[in-house]
């Protein structure tokens, strides 16, 4: 319709157009008309929204408000690629620190691929080109279900480009974009898969150096694949050092970069990747990276010198053992971390089990079996580049035993044995110790006639203060789980604990008032009794009801919980903890139990699960004096 005075479309049609309800032909018509007609332009701008449009408007303004400047990237197609004999370009996907990525199709095989064109400025230097080609050859050796496969490296005229596997899916950062963390099982499952991929690369002698959620793609089948779109080494050679952009290209991403990598890019080995993977896990579990605030340089300083916010405070439901795994992955000193990715995968295995929607590692690693997928080009997500370009570390790595690791049949590990519930929560550091079994009241009762009724321990009915030792020295870090039922009376049950060699108590329902409510907590902290610590009054152990008590002792921390409710957390130096004479027993290095008249308890379970270190069962002499 090219009449000079085209009739104005009816208001209805304009509205339908604005709401996206017209078909393509009609839409084009109207758009063409609008360009020439100021009146209709005004009309369109003042049209009301329908429900969907208004919804989108809300969503868009919220999204834009969160994002930093939305950058627009150039989308030139180099002529060398337009007429390539083997590949037909389909469309532009995105751009990153190293170059631009296109979706293409192998003309004969009709297989979709991703082509990454290396930036011209980078390839102008002959050295760079040679090194790049060497890297590519190394990367092409990688063949693993958790790594995006590189198919080819090519040159078209002056242009160097990489041909890679094309993946449909989204990068992991998209899953936590709104700050809501992932379920524990999923986060661990994904990171574990990434670790397995990293292990494969490590065994080929390669390091990634840019591990982050944006570089981990999640396929629709729930498989994670590592990809890369930046060679830290390459960018520093041709660009100014410290040229970090908002999206984090350059010297690796400031959010996930390892301390040693900041100091010296080329000294980074696989343990730097483990650090980055640890930061990634932190992010998936909390919804934010370890150091979310500050400028790029401030973040670099943070990685070098500061500790991230305690993951358990951001996510209190996190199993203690898992928090420890993340911490260990993120140790400042490489020697303190896991020494190879396989160890990480093993450590995460118990937490990754049980999600039956996703089948780990079940997809074939052969590119020919992969179906055609689309890559999702996120505006903020940056490039979906697909080659996993590695750097060959300067020296042979003395840590980890890749040969040994590859001997372990990975398939078996993944199918897995049914992990008992306790181990699932704490981690497979050691089997739980049944403390009740160790007790012999005839030998171990210090005050009061403790006895067993079947498998249950019953606290005494005589005396005022009753104390019973458990002939066991706990390991450095541990968790005790107890099942207790109050049979009679008010007043306290206490558990004697050891932390950093100091003995102290966890008290439950002490100093009860007339209403039966007492105080519970740790005793003594800074020489203060529980009753002087201003804790709330409540009843933890109700009459006739079996309550589960959970006490976790770690270096510089004690957590006391009852029936899933947090009672108290102590964080600090164990030097502040002590015990009064009144409560003590002759053995200063063991666990013990106590109660106070008139309370009588039945303890049906008392297990200790080691978190770190080794506990010791003692063979002790019976108490002679009482």
């Amino acid at each position, binding site marked *: 319709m090219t009449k000079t005075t085209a009739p104005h479309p009816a208001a209805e049609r304009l509205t339908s157009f604005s709401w*996206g309800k017209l078909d393509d032909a009609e*839409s084009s018509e109207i*758009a063409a008309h*609008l360009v020439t007609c100021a009146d209709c332009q005004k009309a369109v701008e003042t049209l009301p929204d329908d429900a969907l449009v208004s919804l989108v408007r809300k969503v868009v*303004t919220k999204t834009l408000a969160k994002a930093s400047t939305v950058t*627009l990237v150039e989308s030139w197609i180099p002529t060398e690629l337009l007429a390539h004999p083997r590949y037909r370009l389909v469309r532009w996907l995105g751009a990153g620190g190293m170059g631009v990525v296109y979706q293409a199709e192998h003309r004969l095989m009709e297989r979709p691929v991703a082509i990454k064109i290396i930036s011209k400025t980078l390839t102008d230097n002959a050295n760079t080109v040679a090194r790049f080609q060497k890297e590519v050859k190394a990367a092409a050796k990688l063949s693993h279900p958790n790594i995006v496969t590189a198919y080819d490296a090519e040159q078209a005229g002056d242009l160097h480009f990489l041909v890679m596997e094309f993946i449909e899916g989204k990068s992991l950062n998209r899953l936590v974009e709104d700050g*809501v963390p992932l379920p524990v099982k999923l986060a661990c499952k994904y990171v574990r898969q990434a670790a397995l991929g990293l292990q494969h690369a490590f065994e080929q002698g390669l390091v990634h150096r840019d591990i982050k959620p944006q570089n981990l793609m999640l396929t629709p089948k729930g498989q994670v694949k590592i990809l890369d779109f930046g060679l830290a080494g390459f960018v520093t050679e041709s660009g100014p050092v410290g040229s970090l952009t908002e999206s984090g290209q350059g010297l690796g991403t400031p959010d996930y970069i390892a301390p040693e990598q900041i100091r010296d890019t080329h000294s980074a080995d696989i343990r730097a990747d483990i650090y980055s993977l640890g930061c990634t896990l932190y992010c998936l579990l909390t919804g934010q990276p370890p150091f979310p605030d500050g400028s790029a340089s401030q973040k670099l300083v943070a990685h070098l010198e500061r500790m991230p916010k305690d993951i358990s405070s951001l996510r209190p*439901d996190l199993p203690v053992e898992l928090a420890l795994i993340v911490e260990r992955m993120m140790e400042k000193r490489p020697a303190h971390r896991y020494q190879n990715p396989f160890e990480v995968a093993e450590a995460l295995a118990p937490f990754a089990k049980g999600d039956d929607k996703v089948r780990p590692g079940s997809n074939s690693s052969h590119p020919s079996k992969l179906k055609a997928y689309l890559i999702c080009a996120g505006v903020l997500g940056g490039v979906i580049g697909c080659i996993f370009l590695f750097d060959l570390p300067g020296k042979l790595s003395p840590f980890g035993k890749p040969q040994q690791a590859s001997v372990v049949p990975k398939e078996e590990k993944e199918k897995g044995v049914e992990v008992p519930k306790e181990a699932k929560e704490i981690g497979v550091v050691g089997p739980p110790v049944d403390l009740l079994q160790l007790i012999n009241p005839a030998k171990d009762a210090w005050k009061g006639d403790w006895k067993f009724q079947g498998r249950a321990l019953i606290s005494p009915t005589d005396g005022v203060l009753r104390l019973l030792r458990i002939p066991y020295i706990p390991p450095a870090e541990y968790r005790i789980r107890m099942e207790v039922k109050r049979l009679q009376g008010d007043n306290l049950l206490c558990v004697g604990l050891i932390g950093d060699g100091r003995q102290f108590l966890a008290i439950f329902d002490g100093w009860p008032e007339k209403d039966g409510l007492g105080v519970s907590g740790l005793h003594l902290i800074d020489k203060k009794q529980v009753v002087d610590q201003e804790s709330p009054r409540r009843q933890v152990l109700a009459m006739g009801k079996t309550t589960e008590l959970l006490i976790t002792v770690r270096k510089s921390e004690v957590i006391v919980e009852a029936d899933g*409710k947090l009672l108290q957390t102590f964080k600090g130096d164990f030097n502040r903890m002590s015990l009064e004479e009144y409560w003590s027993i002759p053995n200063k290095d063991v666990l013990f139990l106590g109660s106070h008249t008139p309370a009588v308890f039945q303890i049906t379970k008392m297990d200790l699960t080691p978190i770190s270190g080794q506990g010791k069962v003692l063979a002790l002499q019976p108490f002679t004096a009482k």
Partner: protein
Amino acid sequence: MTFSPVPISGFLVPCNQFILILIVSSSIFTQYLPQTLLPGNPSVAQTPPSLLQRLREHPGDGEAWNRFDSLYWPLLQTWLRRYSIRPQDADDLVQQVLEVVLREMPNFHYDAEKGKFRGWLRGILVNRLREFLRSEQARPIATGDSNFFNKILDQLEDPKSDLSRLWDQEHDQHVARQLLAVVERDFSPTTYQAFLRVMAGDQVAAIAADLKISANAVYLAKSSVIKKLRQEMYGWTD
């Protein structure tokens, strides 16, 4: 998409011709009717089905279910955490809700009376929560007051309550946001950028100048992206 007879080219089609058109087009669309939810736009054959449509028609479509799961996990989790459900229970509950959806999806029919998908989903969530409350009677819930909880569930069940309206709003925004990201893939970054800026309220002329495209393209950008989103959201919205 509604099928509304529109006066064609400014004049009315004669009655019998119009009826003929109707008959022809209805015979085209009846063959699609059992398979799709769309009531009869003949161009439906070319329209890729929305996620909900796929799930209804092909319950075995693993990929669609994975997308559905990852779409709803964060939303359901957020809701449960808000009411102090313990995270391990929240995980289980979300799983249960999704399993019920999987099982019952073939029975979900959108109609004006029963209401939209979000209402149906809300109903499932309430049922699961009630079951959970019953089974957890022996253990106190984090907030410690199961009565308080029951009041919340009652509200959630009532489609007219404030709580339900809040759920509806948050649900729609969440789904729209997720599906926008999907729709984005089908457009060039420039087009999508233009769309975003139009929605944000920028002037068409300014957008055209900044992005170096025609004003025509800007108008089309908004209309096409919305159109695509409408298709994706079919089943969620009317």
